[in-house]
């Protein structure tokens, strides 16, 4: 059988009827093979082309991880602080207005008194704990070990307000607090730095020059929402700290903040309103005048910081997204070069029977493949990068589950968008012109 007969014999009866169109298009897998072949043919160029998308996707993944990590952390930290907590602090912001500036003077920002604490305790019904606090930074010494830490003067109510627990020992009681006994509860960080692994309870420490007896160790609490180590603290009766440690700068009845814990989440707003009213009365603030204190509840802090962080995350991702667009432009550039370089190939493919959309899809697939492979590599690098940031850096990084589909989805989109024009150019080439091209 000769060659021509061989070919004819293979044609099925259906083929011999020769419909003008056959609907059985070439299988996609073949187009994928063509695209893959072209990519593999120039490995270096393909790698460099994808690099833009690699960097873009890696950046987006890392940035969203940082943002989401921060969001998660702050949420859990603020929740651990107690979302039904209302915090009263002196307001330093009484600038402007008639004589406001002059009347302030040094230390005028500190405007909370024991009397305020009492008033709140007596008059705000839904408060389960009202805890005043003074704070100072001090050098603490124990048997030659030395540690600079935060010293807080508190009352036993503070444990309730902040949901603090003890790892060992006990909290001082109300009587000891009133007497200003020199007893202290220390945080885990302080315990570790002063006493190593030995039990601190019963040991003596000196805070600046004042000796205290350690009677308890706090449970570990970790970092606060503002990046503070909550275990790096020494707590002692308010009276003792105020008179012995920060007294020089304070009037004898001054407190720096007041923590008020509402009986439940729903009562937070009510408590905040009541506290505000009590404080305005205490401070004799006329209707229409500004408060000389600030009052925050943790729920609103949580909301505000979450909103801020969400914005921050979007901003980070958007900045990173710019590099993804730059990567897309790189792909478009190379695809345009490829179309020019392979004009004759396109003409030849058309001559042997490729339809315009076969060419279109082949080049679009090539572009998407470049972008998608870049996206995949970028995703891996981004995830690893986020891990490194979480491990090495102080920044919490959490990789949200949606970052994978998002990264791959976006890189496919980039490939499609930036491959569309080159592919369209390839598909609309005139086969005669294309074959003639040198």
């Amino acid at each position, binding site marked *: 059988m000769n*060659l*021509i007969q061989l070919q004819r014999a293979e044609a099925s009866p259906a083929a011999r009827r020769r419909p*003008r169109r056959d609907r059985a298009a070439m299988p996609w897998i073949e187009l994928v093979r063509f695209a893959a072949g072209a990519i593999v043919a120039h490995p270096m160029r393909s790698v460099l082309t994808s690099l833009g998308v690699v960097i873009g996707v890696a950046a987006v993944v890392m940035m969203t991880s940082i943002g989401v990590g921060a969001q998660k952390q702050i949420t859990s930290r603020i929740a651990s602080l107690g979302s039904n907590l209302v915090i009263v602090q002196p307001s330093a912001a009484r600038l402007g207005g008639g004589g406001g500036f002059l009347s302030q003077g040094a230390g005028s920002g500190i405007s909370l008194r024991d009397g305020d604490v009492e008033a709140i305790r007596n008059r705000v019904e839904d408060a389960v704990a009202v805890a005043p606090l003074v704070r100072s930074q001090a050098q603490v010494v124990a048997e030659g070990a030395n540690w600079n830490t935060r010293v807080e003067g508190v009352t036993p109510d503070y444990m309730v307000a902040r949901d603090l627990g003890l790892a060992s020992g006990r909290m001082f009681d109300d009587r000891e607090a009133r007497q200003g006994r020199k007893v202290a509860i220390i945080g885990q960080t302080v315990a570790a730095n002063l006493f190593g692994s030995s039990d601190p309870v019963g040991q003596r420490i000196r805070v600046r020059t004042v000796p205290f007896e350690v009677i308890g160790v706090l449970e570990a609490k970790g970092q606060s929402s503002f990046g503070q180590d909550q275990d790096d603290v020494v707590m002692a009766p308010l009276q003792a700290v105020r008179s012995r440690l920060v007294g020089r700068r304070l009037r004898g009845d001054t407190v720096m903040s007041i923590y008020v814990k509402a009986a439940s989440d729903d009562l937070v707003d009510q408590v905040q309103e009541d506290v505000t009213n009590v404080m305005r009365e205490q401070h004799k603030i006329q209707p229409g005048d500004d408060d000389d204190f600030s009052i925050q509840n943790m729920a609103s802090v949580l909301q505000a910081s979450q909103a801020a962080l969400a914005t921050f995350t979007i901003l980070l991702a958007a900045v990173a997204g710019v590099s993804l667009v730059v990567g897309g432009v790189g792909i478009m550039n190379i695809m345009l070069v490829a179309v020019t370089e392979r004009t004759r190939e396109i003409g030849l493919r*058309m*001559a*042997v*029977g490729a339809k315009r959309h076969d060419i279109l899809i082949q080049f679009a697939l090539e572009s998407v493949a470049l972008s998608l492979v870049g996206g995949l590599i970028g995703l891996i690098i981004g995830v690893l990068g986020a891990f490194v940031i979480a491990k090495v850096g102080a920044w919490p990084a959490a990789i949200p589950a949606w970052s994978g589909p998002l990264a791959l989805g976006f890189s496919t989109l980039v490939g499609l968008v930036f491959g569309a024009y080159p592919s369209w150019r390839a598909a609309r080439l005139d086969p005669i012109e294309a074959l003639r091209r040198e």
Partner: protein
Amino acid sequence: MIAFKDLHKIYIMGEERVAALDGVSLEIAAGEHVAVVGPSGSGKSSLMNILGGLDRPTTGTYRFDGEDVGGFDDDELAEFRRRRIGFVFQSFQLLPRLSALQNVELPMVYAGVSRGERRERAAAMLDRVGLGTRKGHKPTQLSGGQQQRVAIARALANGPDLLLADEPTGALDTHTGEEVLALFGELNAEGLTLVVVTHDPDVAAQARRRVTFRDGKIVQDDAGVAA
């Protein structure tokens, strides 16, 4: 098999209208071996492009086995080229990335032939054109004559009704050119319809029929010296 009736192809270049084909009527029967000759610009390339379904006439009809090819859209033309036409170009037009075998497979890919069958048929084609031992070679590893034979194998891959060759020996030396022509002779003897566009009198002489173009018109249509 092929019937052109009063074919015109007009290009608009700026203000001017250039008639590349100016009323061409031509019939070619199955199994013929036709040489199309004429000086450059005489319209033979335009004829070839229309014949091969790469281009459409401006006016006039082109029927191929009764089908109105002149009225096909782009997809139908692609389909037509795939099924019915095998192209052989002066510059071979092999894809440099692909092996000889893969080059021959290419038209069958667009025809949706399965991979295994494609491979088998392409190998048989290469055996047939005498390149059975060079299947894995890239075009750059082959001589000009070998490359043209790969191109011929590719043109035959989908079992075309018509083999269209444009200066098939133009890039070859005399000896390899003769080999390619001999292969054409064999294919024609097996029943394949052959249309060769050429300047070369030796190539034209091999055809049984010679159609001469000048200024977009057929000026002569006669039997050449049979090979």
